[in-house]
């Protein structure tokens, strides 16, 4: 079996505007880094949550009646700490909308998505005497980051450990021993990370409940502790992380949660800079991988000092990055906790061309490393197969599209084709909005996939998939109405084609989606066939029985999907019975109540 390569994502801190965009003119503030990245067809993003100039955008997504304290509008940590569960849900929805609406690449293929959240709350390890309030805010900010990540469908949140030096005005710093101070900061960090899971005030009950649900389902995003090089920083080597981890999981009430959810974020540039010998750090990272603690990876280049992120290859050569990238490849193939992506970090480089170059080079290098590994025939026995995915398949078929768009001989192929293209484009966007990926376009329909790991809690996936099917109806109706009006105006004497109809088949199952080679990102497997057979069944069995004028959208689903729907949605559908699918066998099918025919004799 060929090895799988990690994806390459871009951390959105690559662009940091000087001022909040709103202050430039009448246009509302935007998250320019994400918008530009998406417009330039970058698929995978690590969301930097959040910069100073982003606060207004995030505030704009919250309930308009919501007021924030002044401090929250100046300080990212105060703002992030102040967000309620409702704010976080609204923000997540807005961010997902931003992904769907701004993506400039082809809509057929893997969806643009957030791979991880990158945060910067360094005061989390601040001792009480130096800034207790800031520490509390940082804990809340981390908690909110975890929740936001879960609403966005990503499983990894990068956190920093902060400084190993007393604060600069030094008045409260009486510790003379640098080592003792570091130990006390590490103890505070462990305590703070545990407090993330404890309800600290009554207003957070709702959040605690959400966290508990995620914990129960095992879908809580991982906290990935980042390494920063130099004596200034608390976690400044791979060995230091391991020491901290071992101490943190054995101490305190919530050590067992950290044991499950605390991982390492390997910043390769930082690891190379970290010690006098990068080989030692490499060994440290290998140990971390052996213990399955590698959560995520950052990649950039640095010129001997911790100065600025540069495109990989500017200073170090491929051969120097290769061993680190090989670890990423091994992790994708063997780890159950690795994000599956290497994130390019180019903080404040402010140039999308540079970002694109860095992504391209990293992808090429990863590919070269994978080939080297395959040639070396290194014994990597995949224990996790990221190509086998659980999720929901949604197959959609558009009826009467040919009659509507191409029935008149004198119609312009370009004009009508463009209309159809726009309609299908909108359908795809509706799917993206609900975190689904359109796997293929079938000429007058699509097959979409909603991946289970992109939803927390899992029940969201079923709601979103069904909701996508329902919302597509509105798009189709709108297009049909416009076309009818158009045809009536041009040639009122000719009959107007029937309205466009939709068939939607929903099925939960498992697909094989190759991550390499020529059928990359195509879904293969028995469950894909079930969804298409179900669609075929609607078109051949149900639709002919429905009077033409009553045909709107006909939604059918298999038992595996229906049993996971929340009760209020499940009751819309009734069991139709068992259906024999060619090559598959019998499947129980549920159908929209509106289309259920009288019981068969």
């Amino acid at each position, binding site marked *: 079996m060929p090895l799988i390569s990690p994806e390459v994502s871009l951390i959105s801190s690559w662009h940091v505007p000087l*001022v909040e965009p709103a*202050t430039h003119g009448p246009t509302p503030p935007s998250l320019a880094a994400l918008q530009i990245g998406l417009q330039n067809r970058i698929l995978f993003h690590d969301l930097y949550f959040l910069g100073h100039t982003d606060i207004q955008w995030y505030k704009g997504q919250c309930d308009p009646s919501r007021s924030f304290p002044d401090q929250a509008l100046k300080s990212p940590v105060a703002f992030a700490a102040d967000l309620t569960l409702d704010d976080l849900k609204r923000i997540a929805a807005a961010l997902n909308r931003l992904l769907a609406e701004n993506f400039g690449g082809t809509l057929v293929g893997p969806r643009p998505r957030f791979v991880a959240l990158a945060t910067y709350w360094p*005061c989390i390890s601040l001792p009480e005497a130096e800034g207790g309030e800031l520490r509390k805010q940082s804990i809340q900010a981390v908690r909110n980051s975890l929740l936001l990540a879960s609403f966005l469908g990503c499983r990894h949140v990068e956190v920093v450990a902060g400084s190993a030096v007393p604060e600069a005005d*030094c008045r409260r710093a009486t510790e003379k021993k*640098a080592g003792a101070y570091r130990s006390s900061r590490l103890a505070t960090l462990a305590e703070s990370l545990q407090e993330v899971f404890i309800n600290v005030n009554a207003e957070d009950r709702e959040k605690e409940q959400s966290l508990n649900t995620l914990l129960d389902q095992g879908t809580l995003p991982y906290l990935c502790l980042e390494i920063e090089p130099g*004596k200034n920083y608390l976690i400044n080597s791979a060995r230091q992380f391991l020491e901290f981890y071992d101490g943190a999981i054995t101490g305190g009430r919530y050590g067992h949660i950290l044991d499950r959810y605390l991982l390492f974020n390997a910043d390769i540039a930082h690891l190379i800079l970290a010690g006098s010998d990068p080989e030692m750090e490499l060994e440290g990272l290998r140990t971390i991988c052996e213990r399955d603690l590698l959560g995520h990876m950052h990649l950039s280049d640095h*010129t001997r*000092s911790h*100065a600025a992120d540069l495109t990989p290859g500017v200073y170090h050569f491929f051969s120097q990055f290769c061993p680190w990238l090989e670890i990423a490849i091994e992790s994708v193939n063997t780890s159950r906790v690795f994000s599956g992506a290497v994130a390019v970090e180019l903080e404040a480089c402010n140039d999308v061309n*540079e970002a694109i170059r860095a992504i391209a080079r990293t992808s090429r290098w990863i590919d070269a490393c994978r080939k080297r590994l395959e040639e070396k025939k290194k014994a990597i026995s995949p224990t996790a197969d990221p190509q086998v995915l659980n999720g929901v398949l949604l197959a959609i078929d558009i009826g009467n599209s040919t009659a509507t768009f191409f029935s008149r001989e004198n119609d312009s192929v370009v004009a009508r084709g463009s209309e159809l293209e726009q309609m299908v484009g909108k359908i795809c966007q509706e799917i993206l909005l609900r975190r689904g990926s359109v796997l293929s376009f079938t000429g007058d329909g699509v097959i979409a996939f909603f991946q289970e790991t992109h939803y927390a809690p899992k029940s969201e996936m079923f709601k979103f998939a069904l909701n996508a099917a329902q919302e597509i109806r509105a798009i189709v109706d709108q297009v049909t109405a416009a076309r009818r009006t158009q045809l009536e105006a041009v040639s009122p004497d000719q009959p107007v084609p029937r309205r466009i109809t939709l068939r939607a088949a929903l099925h939960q199952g498992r697909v094989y989606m190759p991550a390499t080679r020529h059928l990359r990102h195509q879904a293969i497997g028995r469950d894909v066939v079930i969804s298409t057979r179900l669609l075929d069944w609607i078109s051949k069995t149900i639709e002919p029985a429905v009077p033409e004028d009553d045909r709107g959208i006909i939604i059918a689903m298999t038992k595996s999907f229906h049993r996971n729907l929340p009760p209020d949605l499940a009751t819309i559908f009734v069991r139709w019975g068992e259906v024999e699918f060619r090559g598959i066998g019998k499947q129980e099918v549920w159908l929209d109540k509106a289309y259920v025919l009288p019981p068969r004799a």
Partner: protein
Amino acid sequence: MSSAYDHVDPYRAYLYGPTPDDSACDWLPNTVLPHYSSEEAGAVMAELERLFAAYQAGFILGARHSSPSPTWRDESVSDVSKHELSRFATRVHVFEEPIVGSEHTQSAGRYLGFVCLRPPKETASKVPSPCFEYVIEAELVRPRHMFRPRYHLVHTTTSAPRLGVLPFVSTAFMTPRTGVAASTCVHLAISQALHLVMGRFGAKPISQREFEVCLWHEANGTKTIEEVAKEGVGLRTALKVIEDNCRVGGFTADFSEHLGFTGEVEICREAHRCLTDTLANGLPVILMVDHNHLIPGPAKRPPEPHAAFIFGMRLLHSGHEISHGGCEPGELMREDEAELPGTFIGHDSIRGPYVEWSAKHILASAMVCPPLPGDPEDVKQIKGIRFLALGPHGMKIGLPEVRQLAVKLVLPHWRADPTIYEEYHRNFGHRGTDANPTRWRFVTRLLAMHEVLKKYLHDNAPSSRAALAEAFRDVGASMSSDMILKQVGYCWAVELYLPAYRQLSQFGQDPPSRPQPLLVLLWSIRDSFVVRPAGRLCRAIMLLDLVNLATRPDYKSLTYRVVSSLP
């Protein structure tokens, strides 16, 4: 097409915007710093005016954008009071004002570099501070007048690319961090000097804050970080810290009476010479001075130790610029005396970058420098000039020492065997030897071993390499010749020239373009001194007969002598 857009200067990319997708470039007016309040923007512009005062020319602002700054990062991460500020600094690219009427500089003149500014803090200080409050660091090209031939500046092309900017010849200028009662200039000077040698010697630059943290670790539980930050540090401790943390080395130089220098004139003369040679070898210098003497204020203040960061000089001096040396009326000034610089060039945290100090003034300021708390007791009360120079990692012997040792080793050699000295003279058409060794010229060079081989072993024959390796071989070591030479790394080379070669043209001979020294003394920078009853010794290798090796085909191999050895 307008010539404003048709120019080969790649730095013009920094004139506009930037916009992250480069599809809409705007050239902002010169005073627009969009994220600062108008009050703060005024203060920033005033600082920029001060920063470019040495350029004696107008400037315009190019692109302005957020950027990472390692200095700001280290300053803000450990300062709770700054947690509300952005963790990114503002980078402003700066160009010389265009020359009116010049087609090629219609929009901007030459690129001057870029400045990193601290983020807005909402309100500008009511009372203007003598320090830079917004400028945190800058990478700057030299002022135009410093391109004249007498100016020699240590510079680098590696400092700007570390921040993702196209490389250009620059020196880093940094300002003290804010928010502490005292921040010592040694930390700042070292941070700036490290950036100058990161390309040549592979130094790992650290910020002043990181240097303080390293010092705190070095203090080994005896001081709080506040004490470390406030007290300052002796030059020897500073050197140890950078040796341990920055993959770089250097040497401290001490010209004081207890080391055998008699009187201020001799101290100044020797310090002047060594400073010149150190800078000529491309090593930046941190010279301890009395700050209030160097930069006098309106009121007389007690002496205050200060580290002046020196990285350049203007060679050749006028009489008023030095207080020592010179020559008797009617006597021809020696070449090595005449070349001594009249001014030294450095960055000053208050006056700004590329400040010029006369040699007389800065050496006088150094003579009255009070001791630092971190100085060892043995040097605290002794008047003298002290400096630290940064060089390759592992350096154990400094330039002043090899200069002194060279003189001490050559004189007995000449007395014992004057043959080669006479031969040298004959080569240049003279008879006899110049009998006044004080007129001989010693030139000190810091050379990598491969430069030594190319420069002195003209044939580069294996036998010569083997001979040289043999001289550097440690007792009992069984390495190959190539490995020994590789391990030596850098050498101090002191070349001896007799005055004869200067008079060649007077005798109608065709002088060689680069006259050969009579002999060269080599020291591995890694060899330590050994204290013996007779004094301090260090292995020195004397390369002899270099003129013949270069000019006469029958001379095929190196003649050398180990003139002082390790035990």
